[in-house]
């Protein structure tokens, strides 16, 4: 039988058997809604975490001297990026780059009264960092300011262990490039927190100029680059690797630095994959059951159709087409309902407790991306089709005379 005819017949069977088709559609649609909501929920959490990691801390791309990230903290003076290198200008003019913020990273000791603890400091340009570290939360006081060079902001944990309050004068001590020790007195202007509590326990930030004076150096360790969108990262990294000499620079995308985020993604992705498999199994089981019932109910019809000259292949492709149509319709239904539910749930918001290592809770939404949506469509259509294979094969293998007797 020509295929368009088979498809037309399958369409009639599906649409004119409203009750049976509705059962199948509900099964597929329900599975797809469940998958979209669960995956979209986790995706929203991961997406929020990703953007927060980038915007509080990492930026999208970091440019350093080669191997700085592996070995730099132990020998900070061996990996300096001079301010006057022309690549700096080039970088700022690169497409999609919003901000380039230089950072000088070092450790030392911080004292307040009798208390002295070690710290990990970032010397930053306050103006640029305001753009870059949008999500750095100032818990108390104010962020750094260009006009107040002799100030510092402390990570919340560090401020606590030091017993520092706003306005306190603290002394920072660090090694200089030439091997000496230098100190500077700065005022506590504020305290901050990030997603990573361990970092907040030791971190402080101060204006880049003050940091350079303390270490008696020119230059910085990294140029932290913020892009217009996270999705542009790969393209920009590729472009920069073309332009910049790899003997002079390491060009590192955020994804290589976001260790905690990456591990979280791996963990959750496994869970989501398991969930998708479970949903796929549920769809396959319930659809193959529905299809099998449909084939059994229509045994007499199959016998008649074959007696009237239809081949086994005609029967096979008829039932497969019906499965495919149910799959497509169920997928569309599921996606439409999924989007609708997602919109409602996102509007209301899901209150979430603080994630591990963080201090504050947040409101999660359901994040449905085109990628996830097309995955759901493919999953629904594929599983329904797979579920139809055995029933369709059964139908095509029926013994005609036995099938005809079924009508009696």
């Amino acid at each position, binding site marked *: *039988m020509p295929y368009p*005819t088979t498809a037309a017949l399958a369409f009639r069977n599906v649409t004119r058997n409203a009750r049976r088709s509705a059962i199948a559609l509900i099964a597929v649609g329900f599975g797809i809604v469940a998958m979209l909501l669960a995956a979209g929920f986790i995706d929203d959490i991961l997406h929020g975490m990703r953007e927060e990691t980038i915007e509080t801390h990492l930026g999208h791309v970091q440019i350093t001297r080669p191997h700085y990230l592996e070995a730099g903290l132990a020998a900070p003076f061996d990996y300096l990026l001079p301010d006057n290198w022309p690549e700096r200008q080039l970088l700022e003019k690169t497409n999609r780059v919003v901000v380039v913020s230089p950072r000088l990273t070092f450790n030392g000791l911080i004292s307040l009264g009798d208390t002295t603890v070690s710290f990990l400091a970032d010397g930053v340009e306050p103006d640029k960092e305001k753009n870059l570290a949008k999500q750095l939360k100032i818990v108390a006081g104010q962020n750094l300011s260009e006009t107040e060079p002799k100030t510092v902001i402390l990570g919340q944990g560090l401020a606590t262990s030091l017993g520092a309050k706003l306005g306190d004068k603290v002394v920072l001590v660090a090694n200089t490039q030439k091997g000496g020790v230098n100190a500077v007195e700065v005022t506590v202007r504020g305290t901050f927190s990030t997603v990573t509590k361990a970092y907040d326990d030791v971190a402080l930030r101060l204006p880049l100029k003050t940091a350079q004076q303390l270490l008696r150096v020119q230059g910085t360790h990294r140029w932290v680059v913020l892009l217009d969108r996270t999705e542009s990262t790969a393209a920009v990294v590729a472009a920069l690797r073309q332009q910049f000499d790899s003997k002079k620079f390491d060009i590192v995308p955020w994804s290589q630095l976001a260790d905690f985020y990456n591990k979280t993604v791996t963990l959750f992705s496994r869970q989501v994959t398991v969930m998708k498999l479970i949903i796929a199994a549920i769809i396959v089981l319930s659809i193959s059951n529905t299809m099998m019932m449909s084939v059994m109910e229509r045994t*007499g019809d199959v016998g*008649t*159709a*074959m*007696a*009237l000259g*239809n*081949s086994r292949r005609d029967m096979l492709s008829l039932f497969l087409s019906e499965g495919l149509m149910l799959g497509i319709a169920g997928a569309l239904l599921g996606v439409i309902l999924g989007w609708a539910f997602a919109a409602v749930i996102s509007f209301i918001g899901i209150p979430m407790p603080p994630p591990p290592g963080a201090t504050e809770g947040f409101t999660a939404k359901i994040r449905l991306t085109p990628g996830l949506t097309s995955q759901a469509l493919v999953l629904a259509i594929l599983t329904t089709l797979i579920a139809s294979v055995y029933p369709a094969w059964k139908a095509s293998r029926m013994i005609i005379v036995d099938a005809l007797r079924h009508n009696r």
Partner: protein
Amino acid sequence: MATRAPVVQVEHICKDYKLGEETVHALKDISFNIDDGVFLAIAGPSGSGKSTMLNMIGCIDTPTSGKIVVDGTDVSGKTPDELADLRSRTISFVFQTFNLFPVLSAEENVEYPMLRRTDISKSERKERVSFFLNTVGLAKYAGHRPNQLSGGQRQRVAIARALATRPRIVLADEPTANLDYKTGESILSMMKAINRAFETTFVFSTHDQRVMGMADRLVRIEDGELTTLGVRAGNVWKYVKEKDVPIPTSDAEMQQLLKEDPELRRMIMEDPELRRALLDDQSVAGVAGKGGR
């Protein structure tokens, strides 16, 4: 007409069914021919093997041994696909339970068997649908679904469907068993009229005396054995074979038999006469005017 080869030749057919340890011999060495254009009834008591015989002729079941030639083609050893194609071109069925597709309207049901025939154009298909729905008197019901039709109407649709492919032979397994007396009779008269008009070969299985009354050929099976072959001229049945006489087991034997019985030969060779003798049925006359295949 009379010189044409038989539509179906049944030669030494046996059919066994295995039921656990036991073997049921449903058909035992049956041979006969079905001539072109006949109205043939297969009669016999319940369980005698009528349906089994029809299924073999219709190529939806295969004999345990023996040979069936349909429209010049020996069907033994054909693949299911080849048999499907043969059915699609030369054989049609009318079922006791009508077997219309419930999701299709009357006209869609009639169109159905033509759908796989790429040699029939769409316009030709539509023409045939309306012609045959008209022939069975259901033009007004074209858009109705089977569950909106009475049993008799359904069987008429089934007959239109069977005729639409212009088959060489229509097989009907107890087509009137699910109908009341009057409706059954009108369905039969209609089939008879169509048989006259289009010279389509009809083969029935039945235990209904009326069906046998309309037939011009009779094959009687009892307990899987062919007991009687009958040919009718006018209102007189000439029995070719009866239980106590050996049954011809080959074409050659049949030919021999015909040679020995000149009256029988005349009846068979001059089929048109035989038919004209039967043309007194009024319901036949109306349709007969509409032309043949």
